[in-house]
């Protein structure tokens, strides 16, 4: 009886009623079910049972769950029965009248007869298996007892639907949040306008207010954070800015790169440049975008990304083959090297040293020895 699920008793789109019979009591295996006498209905897709006294109480089971069924003849004081053997409970089964049952079969006890015709029709349906040809709209069964109309999504479709809904929710929240922010931006613009106009008015009415006070006024504005964002505005935000920046970097980085053997990690560049600037620091994003423009601006620098994700700026004149050949020589000289030893040898940072060794390994010049002692590189003698 634990295979049964609550249903609203309505037939689905492609489902048709085959036969129904009053006066049927359900048995869970050998025990009488804790339900009264009712009407049993056979459709093309399911076997349903509705309580005669309480029409709201309706349960069903898909015909696909039926393994086989047999007749049980009537006896003295016993009605004729049909025994229906069922497949094991489905994992994602909807709630039903029984949580669990030690029996894997049920019995339909026909108190008012009608079992012969019912058995015949059941045999027909089980042979034809019409539910396989015309699947009813998912899910079967719908609803939870008397409460109908709740679309319960089952399986992957349901999960996808839920994810879609969640995504829409998030989108809505984000756009709402940014609505406020855009309002804030507008206000800020207005504030800048206002302060500019005041500053101009002050300048016009030179006689009334001294320069001193104008400057003080401007400093108040600055402390509020509404100064003219000179750098961005002078050169414009976006590409123009990055182009100018890239040219500047080309000049700044030339010397340090040559010192360090033609290659520097992007993090090193970031630190170097910002330390030099002092004020008007660069954001990492701006730095990366500027570096990406090196090639198109025909500057003698290149941004390079290794397999491991490490980004470096290197001189265009920097030749990879030379580097690898020299790496191989170094390793062969010493027999074997770790990344740290190699870094010390060349005066490179450990990160770059490791990248070079990995590249040499990729080219097949080196092979690795990975043990508890650490990672060492040997010349590839294989």
């Amino acid at each position, binding site marked *: 009886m634990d295979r049964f699920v609550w249903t609203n008793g309505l037939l689905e789109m492609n489902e048709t009623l085959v036969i129904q019979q009053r006066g049927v009591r359900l048995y869970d295996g050998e025990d009488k079910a804790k339900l009264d006498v009712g009407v049993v209905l056979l459709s093309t897709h399911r076997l349903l049972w509705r309580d005669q006294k309480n029409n709201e109480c309706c349960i069903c089971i898909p015909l696909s769950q039926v393994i086989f069924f047999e007749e049980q003849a009537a006896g003295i004081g016993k009605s004729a029965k049909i025994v229906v053997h069922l497949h094991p409970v489905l994992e994602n089964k909807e709630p039903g009248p029984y949580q669990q049952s030690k029996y894997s079969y049920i019995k339909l006890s026909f108190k008012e007869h009608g079992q012969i015709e019912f058995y015949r029709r059941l045999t027909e349906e089980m042979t034809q298996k019409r539910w396989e040809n015309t699947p009813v709209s998912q899910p079967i069964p719908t609803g939870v007892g008397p409460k109908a109309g709740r679309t319960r999504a089952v399986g992957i479709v349901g999960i996808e639907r839920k994810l879609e809904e969640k995504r829409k929710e998030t989108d809505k929240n984000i756009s709402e949040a940014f609505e406020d922010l855009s309002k804030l931006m507008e206000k800020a613009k207005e504030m800048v306008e206002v302060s500019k106009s005041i500053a101009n008015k002050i300048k016009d009415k030179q006689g009334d207010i001294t320069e001193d006070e104008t400057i003080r006024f401007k400093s108040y504005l600055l402390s509020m954070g509404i100064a003219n964002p000179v750098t961005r505005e002078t050169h414009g935000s976006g590409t123009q800015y990055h182009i100018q920046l890239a040219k500047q970097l080309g000049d700044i980085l030339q010397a340090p790169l040559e010192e360090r053997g033609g290659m520097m990690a992007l993090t090193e560049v970031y630190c170097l440049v910002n330390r030099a600037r002092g004020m008007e620091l660069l954001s990492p994003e701006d730095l990366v975008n500027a570096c990406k423009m090196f090639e198109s601006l025909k500057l003698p620098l290149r941004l390079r990304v290794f397999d491991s994700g490490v980004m470096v700026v290197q001189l265009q004149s920097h030749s990879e083959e030379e580097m690898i050949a020299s790496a191989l020589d170094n390793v062969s000289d010493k027999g*074997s090297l770790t990344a740290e030893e190699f870094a010390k040898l060349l005066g490179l940072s450990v990160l770059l040293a490791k990248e070079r060794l990995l590249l040499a*390994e990729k080219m097949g010049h080196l*092979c690795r*020895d990975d043990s508890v*002692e650490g990672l*060492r590189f040997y010349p590839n*003698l*294989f």
Partner: protein
Amino acid sequence: MSFEWPWQYNFPPFFTLQPNVDTRQKQLAAWCSLVLSFCRQSKLFTLDVLEAQESAVFNNNRIHRKLSVEAIQVVFEELRKKGNLEWLDKNKSRCLIMWRRPEEWGKLIHQWVSKNGMVNLVFTLYELSNGDDTEKEGIKYFMFPCYIALYQQNGNASLQNYNFTVKATVR
């Protein structure tokens, strides 16, 4: 006669599975031939994976390197693909090492049979394996692959199976 280890055995990177595809291929080939020659020398026909991990083949104490379990499995898989290894159980804990593949056995048997003029005679594989040729000592361990090997020698052999003796006629 003590076993002569190949140069790779004393090369530490040999015990690390190489990420570079070409290097790895060469490494695995070297491992395969090492395992096979070791087994042939020690007359080992079956290997237990857990025991093998501790054996000298995969453990070089002198350079303090040993082949990891995953890498050993890779080597075994390589041997299996080449036809030199067969798993004896589903859990891959024991395997049959065939330092001579069944086809090679088949050829060898055929040669021996022809040489000894036993063509068209019926004989048992027991007789075969107890000949004076010590190379054939392995045959009794390879009953089944040998049936197939013989049978597949272009139909040069026919097999009749009576209980535990196998009679084979080689044409």
